[in-house]
């Protein structure tokens, strides 16, 4: 009885529920540094935006980029360079980094969107490896293996050296990025993204230039990934080769699949879980991050394909499905359809 009531309350599109979720999300976003080590809270925020950025491509448009470290990382370097060289307030540096990531994404997208499925993943990976190679070689700019050190946290003369305060200075950038992703998903453009994911030939027949849309989503996604990478670099005070390494691309994919891609909330959840887990393993002195995330990945893929958020949402929604089915039956014409005739 109570369960059914709860289910009708939480049927996915219920506005009250959505506002409830938003409030919980905001409380968590603002409360995080009170309940954990602030640098870890900042990592969660940055990775959450990165994961959501990938979700635009992977979950909503059905394109598996396995090279998103290129955008997170190139922005981390670019943000650092802008911050060091100009001393401008850090949000300006981050914005600059995100623009560099978007600019880099444009040619990569144009060269890769014609491929689909695993071939698209491989092309994006190849470009990301190229970016890694350049970052590794171009020592004068990136610091090579030492990374780019001493990135300042300039913000109108305020002292943000305490990560607790920096978190709140950076949070608006993250929230703006998340808001942007939400806007895109729930826009006319977002409808086309889902149409492309579901059936791109059909989308073309309806007059949508699918390749151009894919390039646009890719660049938007890279821009948001760049925002996240820039905040991360300022937060840590350095940018390293790790940021452009392929494991970073893999990690953000795992976050999406674990949390539930195509849901926005899911990737945020996935980012939180993975970052906390890594932190726990590191403080416990267990050197098996790769093994543990790999295991989580395998278990998710095998047991709940939709990820955590997707599975919960599915369970909640399927309680409401019977009504929908009934509606479909009522509207069905008398005539029984003949089996498909192929020709």
């Amino acid at each position, binding site marked *: 009885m109570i369960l059914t009531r709860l289910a009708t309350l939480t049927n996915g599109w219920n506005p009250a529920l959505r506002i409830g979720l938003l409030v919980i999300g905001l409380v968590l976003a603002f409360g995080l540094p009170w309940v954990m080590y602030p640098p870890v809270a900042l990592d969660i925020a940055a990775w959450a935006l990165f994961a959501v950025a990938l979700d635009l491509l992977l979950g909503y448009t059905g394109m598996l980029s396995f090279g998103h470290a290129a955008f997170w990382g190139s922005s981390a370097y670019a943000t650092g360079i802008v911050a060091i060289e100009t001393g401008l307030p850090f949000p300006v540096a981050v914005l600059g980094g995100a623009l560099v990531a978007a600019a880099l994404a444009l040619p990569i997208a144009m060269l890769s969107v014609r491929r689909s499925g695993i071939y698209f993943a491989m092309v994006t990976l190849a470009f990301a490896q190229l970016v890694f190679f350049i970052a590794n070689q171009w020592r004068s700019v990136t610091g090579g293996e030492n990374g780019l050190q001493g990135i300042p946290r300039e913000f109108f003369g305020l002292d943000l050296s305490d990560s607790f305060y920096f978190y709140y200075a950076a949070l608006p950038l993250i929230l703006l990025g998340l808001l942007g992703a939400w806007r895109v998903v729930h826009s*006319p453009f977002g409808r086309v993204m889902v149409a492309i994911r579901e059936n791109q030939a059909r989308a073309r027949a309806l007059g949508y230039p699918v390749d151009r849309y894919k390039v646009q989503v890719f660049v938007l996604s890279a821009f948001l990934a760049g925002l996240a990478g820039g905040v991360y670099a300022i937060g840590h005070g350095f940018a390293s080769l790790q940021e452009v390494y392929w494991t970073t691309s893999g990690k953000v994919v795992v976050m999406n699949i674990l949390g539930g891609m195509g849901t926005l909330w899911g990737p945020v959840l996935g980012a939180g879980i993975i970052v906390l887990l890594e932190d726990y393993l590191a403080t416990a002195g267990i050197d098996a991050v790769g093994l543990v995330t790999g295991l989580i990945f395998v278990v998710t893929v095998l047991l709940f394909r939709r990820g955590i958020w997707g599975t919960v949402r599915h369970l909640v929604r399927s309680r409401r499905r019977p009504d929908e089915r009934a509606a*479909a039956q009522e509207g069905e014409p008398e005539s029984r*359809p003949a089996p498909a005739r192929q020709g």
Partner: protein
Amino acid sequence: MLRTSGLSKEFSGFRAVSDVDLSVADGAVHALVGPNGAGKTTLFNLLTGFIKPTSGTITIEGRDVTGMRPEQIAQRGVARSFQIASLFEELTLAEHVELALQGRDGTGYRFWRSDKRLRRYAAETDGLLDQVGLGGMSGVPAGSLAYGQKRALELALALALSPRLLLLDEPTAGMGVEDVARTIELIKRVRADRTIVLVEHNMQVVSDLADTVTVLQFGKVLAEGDYQSVRNDPDVITAYLGEAVA
């Protein structure tokens, strides 16, 4: 309206469409008939840019569209329905039609706007769904439709584009008698301001609707003319031996 010349398509040596010269008059309903495997769907795929011809050209409203992409052809006012329903399984019927209307208006690129704006299509969407016999089902996901209903949705999507040239691939296949009758009426109504090419096995539908009939066999044009003359053509009778030409 539509003209092809020497249009051919080879699939690894097999000529599915062979040297087809087709001429569809402005405002006509032009039926394309022929046994299964004759190349009718392949011809549609060529006309709409889904596959590229091995040789030959396609002209629509006097413009050479050979080699254009499907979306470019759609933007030129050409809509098609798919023989094997090609839908967005997870989306509702209303979302399907809204996508088509938005595609027609070319406003899908607006990523900064709310999708609530698509509600402006609500009346038009309901009207289109009503027309094809899917009224009252706007909230149902397409994946849960029966076969005949999917065909009806195909038709709604094609009509939503307000095309000048409408290509329908077996629109009544899998429909019951009642739905076939409604579809015939619908096509009669919407033909007023457009040209229609229709692939159809149901000869009742062909004789009711078609001004001109082209018969395809083995990818080639076997006969062409009005329904009566084609029906009495000895080649056509031979080709259809065993199939009902009523």
